[in-house]
């Protein structure tokens, strides 16, 4: 009797792991993918930190002298700062009495008195900053973090929007087919027959500058690749048995499209989302560099590079390095993560 009671319980039916569980397991085994994931997560944290004002809050403050040297090369001469300093003390101009002909002469005394009333506090400016300063003496590292916030935000939101547009249109076209499909194919053909760069520039010519505009432009011109892939997936799935079964129990078209099929093609969307973030970050940097991207009062990696171009000629390389290294780091990590995701989510591999 007792033997029956103590016998181990019969193993229950184990739920077989789904695509996402399997993918996560595969991703965890992929060392490069995990490192890339950590780097990307770090940048996302930076972005959130800078957005909420926890870090790089004072990026716009002029804390150093003009083109402050990085602290590891404090000894290097800084002609620009020296020049600015001499300008402050005022160059000695030989005094010439112009009071006879100068119509403003009687007012000088009054102006001087009023100037004296205003107190100017000169903020102490550091000679060196951790990784140097820009023309206005702003900390390059803080600028790079703020720039990362702008660039990643634009890339991420634009990619989300493009994936949304591409998935909805691709799903409609692939699932519905017929007239709707033909119309959407025509729409797709119109967008792809214009060279991509030209399409972006045409949109940029019409709309005003701004972060929301550039997100819109990138998303509205960049959905075509996702549309193509999602459409192909939907065509494949629309005739499968599970969709027919859903139809048999009375599921509506919308329900079949987005509740039944979408989870089965979502891995395609995720990989596309990831690769479009990379593509859009690069595009944003170039557009901002050309002055077609973010507005003047905000900073992105592109505007930093635009400043760096002229700085390089006078030997101030740190802004160029800060912007390009931080961008390269993120983009490399993101591309590797995309590759790992693609491998991990490939349903053919078990």
């Amino acid at each position, binding site marked *: 009797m007792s033997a029956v009671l103590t016998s181990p319980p019969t193993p229950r039916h184990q739920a077989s792991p789904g695509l996402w569980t399997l993918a996560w397991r595969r991703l965890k085994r992929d060392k490069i993918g995990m490192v890339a994931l950590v780097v990307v997560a770090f940048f996302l944290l930076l972005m959130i930190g800078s957005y909420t004002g926890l870090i790089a809050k004072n990026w716009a403050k002029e804390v150093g002298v003009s083109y402050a040297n990085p602290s590891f090369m404090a000894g290097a001469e800084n002609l620009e700062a020296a020049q600015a300093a001499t300008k402050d003390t005022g160059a000695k101009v030989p005094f010439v009495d112009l009071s006879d002909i100068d119509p403003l002469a009687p007012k000088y005394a009054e102006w001087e008195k009023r100037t004296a009333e205003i107190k100017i506090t000169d903020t102490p400016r550091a000679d060196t900053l951790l990784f140097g300063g820009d023309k206005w003496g702003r900390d390059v590292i803080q600028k790079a973090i703020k720039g990362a916030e702008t660039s990643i935000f634009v890339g991420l939101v634009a990619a989300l929007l493009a994936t949304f547009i591409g998935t909805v249109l691709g799903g409609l076209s692939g699932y519905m087919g017929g007239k709707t499909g033909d119309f959407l194919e*025509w729409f797709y053909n119109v967008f792809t027959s214009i060279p991509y760069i030209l399409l972006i520039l045409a949109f940029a010519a*019409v709309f005003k500058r701004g972060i929301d505009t550039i997100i819109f432009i990138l998303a509205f011109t960049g959905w075509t690749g996702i549309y193509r892939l999602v459409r192909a997936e939907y065509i494949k799935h629309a005739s499968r048995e599970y969709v027919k079964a859903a139809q048999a129990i009375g599921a509506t078209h919308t329900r079949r499209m987005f509740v039944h099929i979408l989870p089965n093609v979502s891995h395609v969307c995720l990989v596309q989302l990831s690769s479009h973030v990379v593509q859009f970050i690069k595009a944003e940097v170039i557009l901002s560099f050309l002055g077609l991207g973010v507005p003047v009062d905000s900073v992105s990696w592109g505007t930093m590079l635009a400043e760096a171009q002229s700085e390089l*000629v006078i030997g101030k390389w740190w802004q*160029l390095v800060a912007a390009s290294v931080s*961008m390269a780091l993120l983009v*490399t990590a993101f591309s590797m993560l995309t590759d790992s995701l693609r491998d991990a989510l490939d349903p053919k591999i078990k």
Partner: protein
Amino acid sequence: MGAYVLRRIGQMIPTLAGVMLLIFVLFNAVGGDPALVLAGKITNKEQIENIRKQLGVDQPYHVQLGYFAFEVATGFTCTWRSFTEKPDAAKAPANADLKAGPKADPKADPKAATKAASPSGCQAVRSWSTNEEVPKILMTRIGPTLTIMIPVLVLETIIAIFLAIGVAYVRGTLTDRMIMMICTVAMSISFLVYIIVAQYYFGFKWGVFPVQGWSDNFWKNVVTYAPLPVMLAIFVGLAPALRLYRSFFLDEINNDYVRTARAKGLSENTVLLKHVMRNALIPIITNVGIAIPSLFVGSFLLESFFSIPGLGREILVAVNRSDFPVIKAATVYLAMITMIINLLVDVAYKAIDPRVTFK
């Protein structure tokens, strides 16, 4: 084959109409009042009204759309007439108003000069900022763009194919993985950084090449001004091309025919260069075909950095000046070129791969 081509041309018409509609909606409906852009600081209502009348933007949308279709068509007739007319009519100061001599391509030159005169009263649409005829602007700018882009495409493809064979040969080794790693990193650095750094070192610091510039002489352009931008474009394009082509070679390498070839006792070289190469070339050629239309747009970044008077730079300038006619015309005509080239590539594909059938 003939039926296929005809059907493809038939499909182009609605697409082209769609492109024109998109451009029209973008520039005439969404893109603000062009009169205000043109007038600048003028606030005189009458003057603005006059400008609106001149541009025809005071008309209802369907009339404006008609104008736009007419403009696109006149672009063709004017260009066509300029080809057929005798060049003696071209005595007028043709290119006097162009800052940089866009005569890079000697073949394009007489055409450009002829067109400038257009004595038959051909009314092509004019640029808002320079008052030049837009088709003429585009025709003169295409020479420098092609001078840069054709060498880029040819050299990049050849170099990438041979590097890809090399990498596929040592697949799976440390060298292979290192090269792929370097490619990923190289791809993640912005094109801007490459241009800025290369221009600084090669042009400014070491003086190997001119920092920027362009001349009227085709050979001088090829020898002095083109090398640096061409090399940069190849260098930047190489990493993604290498990764892609390597995957094409690796897709082929595991096929049965490769095993058969090896089993016959063929050397690895023969297997790779003869058997694998032929099959891997098919997707490579498709890929090059896709890249051909972008030749005409050129690299607007390279063109603006190196002051090359090409199409890309012209479009960028037009965007900055809100010169809508130039952007509209460039978009519509380049879309046409893209569609025609895509058709040609598909037809040429048949010649390369006998398995392809036209549906």
